[in-house]
């Protein structure tokens, strides 16, 4: 309990949620107990599958059908939520209990204007008139720093940016001043600069309303920014609980220690090695524009990438950093030959033709979709070799060796992708990319979809491979911390243009361009960047 905190608004005791009989473990959540006091922010931290979101959803009683067997108590306002009728729960949801979801793009109804959605809690739970509802909605929109509320109130969610949509969600959640606000990964789907603003907003609003906040996240680095107390979950069990500062400074449980150690820091952890060799990749004034429209619509042209020049040498890692929509993936896809460039030149090694599979390979972001679900791992691995006309036996031998190199036993060849974890699948994808002996490996957000501990392992693997094979690597990422850790040089992209480029060490030490500075502040010092200006540094565009 917090020393100054009063009665807890939420007290969970012995919460146990059983999984369906054929799942990989018996309980989604097992004997979890903790409480949230008024005016307190409690973070539940854990990796995917730890049961943190299930815990949050069980408070709202929004569990999926498969998770019906729930025991324990969830005490809220003196009553056990688990024993309330569905009707009574409906009266609480959006009223005394509110929730912010991870993906604002899907949590908002695409067919209703933003204003109508913000008014909805008033319409459902109060007897307010139309005019009053609209006034309150406008007030809420001002409160969450949405620009020009009078203008935005009639817009639809798809006309807003991700950050603005999440602000709308927050406005809805706070409409009736709930006693408890549950935020399930509210910033995970957002860019890092937007993330910092949303965190600051939640914190400042929570201080005003004195609500209890349960903040679910996989990102331990957020905990130091926002939490009073922290609850660490692993495999459905609560492994550590305490004041945020204490847990971060002196983690007692080995799992918490491992999680903390895996957070990529500012440290530049490149191993020492010989200086980079000959030029492998030369991109000159690359531009890519997309045109939409057609016979019955007006044509629109969107410039995704403008005049990007960049080079990668043998044995060198270049990170291309940018937020979503910055054009960094388009650059990667142009180099891999997946997208036709509009103008400019790409030379890889000695070839500059369209098909570059001999020289360039790519590892994609989502390991769940990068392997054909209907093919065995072995079949996927030999695909490229078979295309080169190499015999089945030789190809399988080579694939087996590469699998071992990435830390997967060769028996995996006969299994299907869904039988592996995300990290294992990404290792398989890396092995597949290496079967053709590429000289340049493109990693397109290759570790972004992985849990932080797995992310660290895959990063280490990539570094080792690159060192041993002396290949060049173009590392596309939105995460400056990862870029800082793995790369020799960093190029920062915004709106299709490279804003700044330089050696990783120099760039981290002294970023020149204001946008780079903002990115760095958001990534490395969430608090410092935001508290001074309280989330109004850059308006969402």
């Amino acid at each position, binding site marked *: 309990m917090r020393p100054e905190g009063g009665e807890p608004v939420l007290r969970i005791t012995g919460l146990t949620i059983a999984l369906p009989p054929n799942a990989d473990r018996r309980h989604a959540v097992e004997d979890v107990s903790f409480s949230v006091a008024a005016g307190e922010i409690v973070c539940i931290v854990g990796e995917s599958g730890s049961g943190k979101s299930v815990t949050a959803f069980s408070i709202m009683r929004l569990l999926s059908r498969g998770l019906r067997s729930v025991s324990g108590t969830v005490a809220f306002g003196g009553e056990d939520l688990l024993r309330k009728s569905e009707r009574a729960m409906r009266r609480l949801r959006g009223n005394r209990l509110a929730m912010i979801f991870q993906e604002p793009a899907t949590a908002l109804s695409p067919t209703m204007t933003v204003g109508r959605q913000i008014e909805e809690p008033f319409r459902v739970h109060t007897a307010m008139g139309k005019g009053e509802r609209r006034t309150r909605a406008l007030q809420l929109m001002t409160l969450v720093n949405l620009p020009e509320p009078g203008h935005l109130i009639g817009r639809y969610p798809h006309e807003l940016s991700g950050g603005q949509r999440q602000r709308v969600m927050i406005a809805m959640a706070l409409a009736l001043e709930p006693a408890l606000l549950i935020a399930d990964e509210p910033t995970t789907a957002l860019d890092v600069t937007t993330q910092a603003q949303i965190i600051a907003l939640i914190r400042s609003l929570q201080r005003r309303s004195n609500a209890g906040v349960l903040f679910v996240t996989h990102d331990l680095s957020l905990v130091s920014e926002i939490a009073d107390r922290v609850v660490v979950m692993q495999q459905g069990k609560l492994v550590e609980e305490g004041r945020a500062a204490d847990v971060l400074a002196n983690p007692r449980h080995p799992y918490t220690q491992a999680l903390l150690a895996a957070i990529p820091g500012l440290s530049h952890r490149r191993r020492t090695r010989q200086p980079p060799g000959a030029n492998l990749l030369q991109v000159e004034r690359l531009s890519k524009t997309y045109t939409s429209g057609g016979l019955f619509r007006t044509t629109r042209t969107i410039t995704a990438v403008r005049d990007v020049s960049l080079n990668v040498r043998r044995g060198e890692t270049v990170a291309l950093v940018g937020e979503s929509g910055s054009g960094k993936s388009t650059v990667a896809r142009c180099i891999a030959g997946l997208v036709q460039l509009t103008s400019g030149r790409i030379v890889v090694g000695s070839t500059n033709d369209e098909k570059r599979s001999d020289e360039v390979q790519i590892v994609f972001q989502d390991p769940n979709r990068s392997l054909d679900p209907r093919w065995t791992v072995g079949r996927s691995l030999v*695909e490229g070799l078979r295309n080169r006309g190499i015999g089945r036996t030789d190809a399988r031998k080579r694939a087996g060796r590469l699998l071992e190199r990435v830390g997967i036993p060769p028996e995996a060849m006969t299994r299907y992708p869904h039988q592996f*974890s995300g990290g294992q699948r990404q290792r398989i994808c890396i092995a597949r990319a290496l079967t053709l002996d590429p000289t340049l490996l493109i990693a397109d957000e290759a570790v972004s979809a992985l849990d932080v501990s797995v992310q660290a392992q895959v990063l280490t693997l990539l570094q080792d491979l690159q060192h041993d094979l002396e290949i060049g690597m173009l590392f596309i990422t939105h995460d400056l911390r990862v870029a800082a850790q793995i790369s020799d040089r960093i190029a920062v992209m915004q709106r299709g243009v490279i804003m700044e480029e330089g050696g990783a060490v120099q760039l981290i030490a002294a970023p020149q361009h204001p946008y780079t500075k903002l990115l760095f502040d958001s990534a490395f010092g969430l608090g410092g960047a935001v508290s001074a200006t309280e989330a109004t540094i850059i308006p969402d565009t």
Partner: protein
Amino acid sequence: MNAGSLEAPLPSTPTGGRVNRWRRHGALYAGGAILVLFGIVILFAHVIAPIDPQAIATRARLRPPSAEYWFGTDRLGRDVFSRIVFGTSASLAVGLAVAGLSAALGVVLGLIAGAVRGVDGIIMRCLDAIMAVPGILIAIAAISVASPSITTVVLALGVNEMPRVARLVRGIVLSLREEPFVEAAFVLGSPRWRIVLGHMLPGVVAPLAVLTTHIAASAMLLEATLSFLGCGLPPDVPTWGNIMADGRILFRVAPWIILFPGMTLSIAVLAINLFGDGLRDLLDPRASIHEA
């Protein structure tokens, strides 16, 4: 940190889950069982049918259902039950052949339209044109131009159903084209035909299986409608539609001539649809992949 410490070990191949999954698909079994029954009826029609379906018995005309004539007799004294038994093969054959034909044509056109940007617009507009005309009109027109035979009926109905298959296949191919595993295959140097046949076609199979069962069912209905209107198979071939057409003018006096083939048709269509729905539950990747 030592590698692999936080990652799960290699999983074992699941076996128990599959048994459970089969157990949940009552619809598939019920539909399948009825279809097997129809299959037996086709194979042993001569044993099952008590009387020759063409045998005319002038003294036993328009007999209501009885122990001797289970489903009654028609205006020529032919046994309705025997005619239904012998009509089973023609009715089911039309359903299966139309499903097969439309699937084959639709898959080829859909794959081409989805994979080759240049011809996509041309193929799809042609298919739109076919879809713009009511199927039954195309069939009637085709049959009145050509001779009324089982081939003509199958061709007319097959071409008419084909755009639905092609649209489905094209949609799947278009969405699969954006999948990273397809892009990975491209970067690995796989030729386009191999990507289409190796990575995309298998993704089409499950939804296609479901759609074709529904096409088979609707083709049987359409065939019955055509025969009922007198523009289907020649009247001497016993099909469920022909039997009903025969009873059309006598519905008030001898409702059994329409009732029993109609019920048989409903049961067959229901069985095929149940089978298709069961198939969808079984093959839907969202249902077959365990939630993490």
